[in-house]
């Protein structure tokens, strides 16, 4: 893999920078502690060692985060409430449900926009506006409103996820469904093909590369939605709850571990979609 070496290099550079930043950001605390205790602050290597191993550092060192990640994923039973696997799954299940809902909605909207001029002209500006609404602000209201009609738990979170993920899908699919060129469309016209045939035999296959690209963006958005949706349900479980309680108790190591867990889950899902993309496109002869 020609990517391994460059990625490794960049990672090493980032980690080095990170360790450096940890010294810079955590140093003040060491000095403070020393002056409160009335002793000389540590210096040199001792100082570095102290900044890299604090209980609640401003910036936890990479090994602290990695240690926490390993401890909370492999170090305990996956069903334990202290296991990141457990919380990751809680978030992932909402993410997946929301992703499916958002994708279906997005595709339906795109098909509507494609076939109905009124929808084309009216929906798009509002879809854009909908994405400028701060979701965190209305998430509590969505939860409460859904609660009042008896929906609780997974579904409200999934709806917030869907709200964030439908947009990239609409945009991508509209572009994709419109990607066939005039000649390809005219060809079907000479066959007197119906709108349905044009959709199934031309527009849909032609939109596949766009679909997968937007699915990747949509998946990341979904995850953010699920995490946001976890905050106003009362920090019960999930990576969002983990972030929140970490934040609430000032446990930076836990925040960063949850953050990385979220990014790893997202990256994993995106990679999965990428895999499906490659398989589908290869089957369709579109990947060379």
């Amino acid at each position: 893999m020609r990517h391994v070496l460059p990625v490794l290099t960049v990672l090493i550079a980032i980690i080095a920078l990170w360790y450096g930043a940890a010294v810079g950001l955590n140093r003040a605390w060491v000095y403070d502690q020393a002056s409160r205790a009335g002793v000389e602050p540590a210096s040199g290597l001792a100082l570095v060692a102290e900044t890299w191993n604090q209980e609640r550092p401003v910036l936890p060192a990479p090994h602290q985060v990695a240690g926490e990640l390993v401890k909370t994923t492999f170090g305990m039973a996956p069903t334990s409430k202290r296991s990141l696997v457990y919380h990751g799954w809680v978030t992932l299940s909402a993410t997946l449900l929301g992703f499916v809902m958002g994708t279906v909605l997005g595709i339906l909207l795109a098909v509507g926009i494609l076939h109905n001029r009124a929808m084309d002209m009216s929906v798009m500006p509002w879809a854009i506006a909908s994405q400028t609404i701060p979701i965190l602000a209305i998430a509590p209201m969505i939860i409460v409103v859904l609660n009042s009609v008896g929906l609780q738990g997974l579904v409200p979170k999934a709806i917030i996820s869907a709200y964030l993920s439908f947009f990239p899908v609409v945009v991508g699919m509209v572009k994709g469904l419109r990607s066939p060129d005039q000649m390809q469309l005219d060809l079907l016209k000479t066959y007197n093909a119906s709108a349905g045939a044009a959709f199934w035999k031309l527009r849909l296959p032609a939109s596949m590369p766009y679909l997968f690209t937007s699915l990747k963006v949509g998946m990341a958005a979904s995850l953010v939605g699920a995490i946001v949706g976890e905050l106003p349900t009362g920090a019960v479980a999930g990576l969002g709850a983990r972030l929140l309680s970490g934040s609430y108790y000032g446990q930076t190591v836990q925040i960063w571990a949850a953050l990385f867990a979220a990014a790893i889950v997202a990256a994993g899902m995106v990679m999965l979609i990428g895999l499906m993309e490659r398989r589908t496109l290869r089957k369709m002869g579109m990947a060379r």
Partner: protein
Amino acid sequence: MSWVLIALAAWVLGWWINTRLAAAPLARTRAGKLAVPVIFGLTVLVVWEGLVRGLDVSPVILPPPSAVLAALAGSLPVLWEDFVQTAVKGALSGYLIGCGAAFLTAILIDRSPFLQRGLLPVGNFVAALPIVGIAPIMVMWFGFDWQSKAAVVVVMVFFPMLVNTVAGLKASDHMQRDLMATWSASYGQSLLKLRLPAAMPFVFNGLKIASTLALIGAIVAEFFGSPTRGMGFRINASIGQLALDMIWAEIVVAAIAGSAFYGLVAMIEKRVTFWHPSQRH
């Protein structure tokens, strides 16, 4: 009940008008292009008002648009102060810094395929970090005023912009680049005269994506610490007071500002990339 009927009737009417309008030649004019979404929006508002009144929804759950409008009109100075704090100081400065930095970074790593191969996957990973997680960290690092909001926005917009610009810098086709080679153009010349112009459609794609992200980022970051002004602060404080009309007023301001910003970027895009097929038809 009658309100519900009014809502339904408004829906049908709005739909009918729009279908007619979209089919009419007027739809191709500027006014027509504006009228259809506006009518759609008005329809949504009337339906909302009708349903809230008809189903007797408590105003502490969902206020009717009329109440939101009243709050909007009644608290303009506060809304303006919040807007300046969040949208101008937080979002806009973060947007400019983030997009600018991403643009420069893209040009810097442009010459090194090695760096690109290494940085982009890592970049995609970082872009997947949820803002709700980054915001408290930024507040911890940069203080509770707008600087930390700008920092959150910078992090949010940086990677979409970087990825798009890098893709854009590759967008010039082979022949166009070979042409430059036959003229023995320097790196700078081919960057300035070929690759940057060719990258513009991608750059604007990044700028548009970033424009919807920026305001959201700034608002959300305020939930994690802020001075006693700002759109996110007001929303957060208003929840405790059950002042939902005020919350929605802020949301309306956010949506208008966000859409207007998006529109502005799209307009500039139209000017700059006038030559691109997608802008011509």
